[in-house]
């Protein structure tokens, strides 16, 4: 009898672990450093990239609504005992710490502390000097020149020069490069030739002197400044075995990073901790706190914060979570809106959904307030454009909020020619109006299905939900094209163009609009923020009216951290990396 049990149990255990993983990812935002990992597939969500983009400003970010700890004496002893160490929970760092080459966003969180980008962005999203003290953009917006700081050093004390920067950009154009950096999509002059192997260097990259480097593009792209202005790999260390077309050796170096960040890797204990130690060669001075540890924290993080095992964690901003955190007494609470947005992808190859009126009806007829705000207990906000409220490009001016209105939805459907048939389901040309919905298994999907089924059936639309066990399976079904509607959320966005990319690069098949394409290019053709703002406003209006996808929601999170930590701030675009060097632990 035991034998049988083992067989069934092992299957059950396997699968219920999946249940857990899904729930863990969504009810709690575990990855403290990288808020976007919540509700996202755990994979491929490189936070390193968060640090890369970003152009300009809007002051509306995070700082408001901070709750400070009411009673620090409640702080658990175990946390009090730590005097020179800060511990932050991180879902699952895997140990591959080379930027550009790593596959997991959690590793990206780690490498964002081990490396410093050439150009950082401030809390408002404006570019500020990192390793580069200044930069110039040519009048035609094609040539970018970066001026490095003097006496820059890698953490082992070796000097950092323009050659290292050139090396970094060059290998991203190698044909064997298998990471997801977008540098190779910037159309750097000579990049394609290098990739094809017909040139031995990228002609657009020019080292002018050891502290100056320039790069020339074939086509203007406003996001290039920060995309190129990212982390720098040491040529002496990462380049000694490099042959064009052969980057396999990089894997061997993934566990022993050599960077320029505020911290350097001390020890990686698989599945448990990433221990880091302050880097005395950091350009901005050695960080105040000697030790920093990312602790692997799968599943619930409550117990670790409550027992003082971690100093900092992130949670979904539900009322209950916030109340519970307040009751703890020893944590400060910082509200936060990640820079991504959620949407329902529509299959524009299906005739019914090609009709704008139907898409609008589907939006009016879906009670998004109930799904994303009420059922989420306030940890969300309804979205109507492809940009987050914290972005400088965000606007509500002239944007239709598509407030829930079943009557309006029915009207639009009638107008589109979909009339109720004998069984109450709307029909047109003998076709029934059916929405075949795909979602991945998580609590939010269950809520969505429950509400959407009720709403759409009230409109006379047949709603057929289907749920997939993981994100990968869902995407592959969507790629197969057999669906009408599917729930997604973007990765973290910095530049407004990031959120629009999916409408131009073929990710949404069937959406072709020359007017939109022209506006998209126009938005990237200039670096002037005010000009760009105007362009993006037009784009948002256009998309808000056309609705190639149904915009759904922005998530809301809170950070909770040990009240002893001083000088902590969280950048909406870079997470905790920018302020971390200044963190101190007050003694009491």
């Amino acid at each position, binding site marked *: *009898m035991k*034998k*049988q*049990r*083992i*067989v*069934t*149990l*092992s*299957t*059950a255990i*396997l*699968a*219920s672990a*999946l*249940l*857990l993983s*899904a*729930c*863990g990812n969504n*009810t*709690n935002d575990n990855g403290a450093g990288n808020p976007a990992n919540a509700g996202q597939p755990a994979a491929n969500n490189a936070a390193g990239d968060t640090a890369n983009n970003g152009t300009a400003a809007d002051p509306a970010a995070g700082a408001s609504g901070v709750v400070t700890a009411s009673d620090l004496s409640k702080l658990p002893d175990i946390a009090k005992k730590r005097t020179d160490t800060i511990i932050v929970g991180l879902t699952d760092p895997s140990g591959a710490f080379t930027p550009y080459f790593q596959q997991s966003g959690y590793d990206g969180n780690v490498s964002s502390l081990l490396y410093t980008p050439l150009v950082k962005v401030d809390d408002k999203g404006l570019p500020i000097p990192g390793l580069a003290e200044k930069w110039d953009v040519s009048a035609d917006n094609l040539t970018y020149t970066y001026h490095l700081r003097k006496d820059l050093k890698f953490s082992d004390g070796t000097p950092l020069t323009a050659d290292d920067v050139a090396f970094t950009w060059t290998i991203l154009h190698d044909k064997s490069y298998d990471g997801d950096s977008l540098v190779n999509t910037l159309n750097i002059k000579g990049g394609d030739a290098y990739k094809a192997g017909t040139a031995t260097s990228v002609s657009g990259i020019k080292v002018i002197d050891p502290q100056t480097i320039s790069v020339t593009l074939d086509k203007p792209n406003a996001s290039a400044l920060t995309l190129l202005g990212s982390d720098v790999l040491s040529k002496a260390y990462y380049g000694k075995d490099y042959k064009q077309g052969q980057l396999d050796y990089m894997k061997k170096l993934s566990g022993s990073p050599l960077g320029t960040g505020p911290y350097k890797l001390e020890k990686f204990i698989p599945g448990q901790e990433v221990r880091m130690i302050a880097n005395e060669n950091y350009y901005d001075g050695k960080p105040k706190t000697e030790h920093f540890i990312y602790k692997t924290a799968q599943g*619930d993080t*409550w*117990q670790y914060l409550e027992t003082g095992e971690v100093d900092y964690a992130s949670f979904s901003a*539900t009322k*209950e*979570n916030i109340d*519970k955190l307040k009751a703890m007494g020893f944590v400060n609470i910082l509200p936060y809106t990640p820079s991504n947005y959620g949407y329902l992808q529509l299959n524009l190859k299906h005739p019914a959904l090609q009709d704008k009126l139907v898409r609008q009806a589907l939006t009016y007829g879906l009670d998004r307030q*109930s799904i994303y705000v*009420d*059922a989420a*207990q306030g940890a969300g906000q309804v979205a109507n454009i492809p940009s987050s409220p914290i972005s400088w490009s965000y606007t509500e001016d002239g944007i239709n909020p598509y407030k829930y209105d079943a009557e309006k939805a029915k009207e639009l459907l009638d107008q589109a020619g979909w009339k109720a048939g004998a069984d109450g389901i709307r029909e047109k040309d003998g076709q029934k109006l059916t929405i075949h919905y795909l979602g991945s*298994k998580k*609590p939010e*999907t*269950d*809520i969505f*299905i*429950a*509400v959407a*089924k*009720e709403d759409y059936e009230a409109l006379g639309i047949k709603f*057929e*939900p*289907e*749920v*997939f*066990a*993981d994100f990968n*399976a869902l995407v*592959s*079904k969507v790629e197969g094209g*057999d669906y009408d509607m599917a729930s997604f959320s973007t990765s973290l966005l910095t530049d407004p163009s990031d959120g629009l990319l999916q409408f131009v690069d073929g990710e949404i098949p069937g959406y072709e609009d020359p007017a939109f394409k022209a506006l998209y290019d126009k938005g990237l053709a200039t670096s002037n923020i005010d000009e760009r703002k105007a362009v993006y406003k037009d784009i948002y209006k256009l998309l808000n009216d056309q609705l190639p996808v149904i915009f759904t929601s922005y998530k809301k999170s809170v950070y909770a951290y040990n009240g002893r930590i001083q000088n902590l701030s969280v950048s909406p675009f870079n997470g905790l990396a920018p302020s971390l060097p200044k963190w101190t632990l007050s003694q009491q």
Partner: protein
Amino acid sequence: MSTIHGETTAALSSPTPQPVKPVYTSLWRQSLRRLLKNKLAVFGFVVVAFMFAACFLGPLFSPYTDNKINMAFMNKAPGLKHWLGTDALGRDVLTRVLQAGRISLTVGLASMVLSVFVGSLLGVIAGYYRGIVDQVIMRLADLLLTIPSLPLLFILGALLSEWKVPTDYRMYIVMLMLSIVGWPGLARMVRGQMLSLREREYMQATVVLGLRDRRKLFNHLLPNLVPLLIVIATLNIGGAILYESVLSYFGLGVMAPTPTWGNMIDAANNMIDFQDHPWLWIPPGFSIFATVIAINIFGDGLRDVLDPKQKR
């Protein structure tokens, strides 16, 4: 060593198609009487019957429906209006628990019966005929045991989706396929038992007596297996009910918003719900617990009555 009792009660479960002789009927009655005397077993049966009745009839008397959303009544604690409180969408937990029981009970029992049937059938064949038949079945079992279930479920999910099987039926198809794939464990066990049984003295006696295969199998071997099968079957019922929620995770089980006990428990799988909303997981949890224990108690009683080796 083993007693002759096997001979007499053996006829009990004989499915032989010959006209039933009166003596069997009285044996059935006799067993039933003995079962009724076992108060615990009767209690178990009554509880199971009650669960069925409550789940299939209960929702008819509820003023709520299982899927009616009411955002104004989110996560309310049990009270006069909602006896067992409401969930995150303001749905009545009591109604949902009862509604859920319909599917959970059906699925639990059906999949239990099915998997025990398939597994024991192959085990009996392998153990009884031995030789090449045994080799083929058991080596096939070895192969199946090495197959990981995770990709298998994913592929099944994708196939059923591809073939546009209505989501309501998927669960039953999957349960069927899983018992087809999941037989090796049970089959090995039953085969082992068969190997040991056929070496017993009374089996050697049947050889001496020159009994036919069918008689040997149905009258002498199977009755001795029944107790083992009952224990396995009743032990597995809880697992089967919980397993349904695992399947729905793969898009293979019941589709939201339709509730099942497993789904309801899983929905409360986090610290906040665990601590602050116990009414979300206690009702389905207790329902599974009560069902499992009642069926096991009943199974124990049944086993005692049917076990040829038990004294009476």
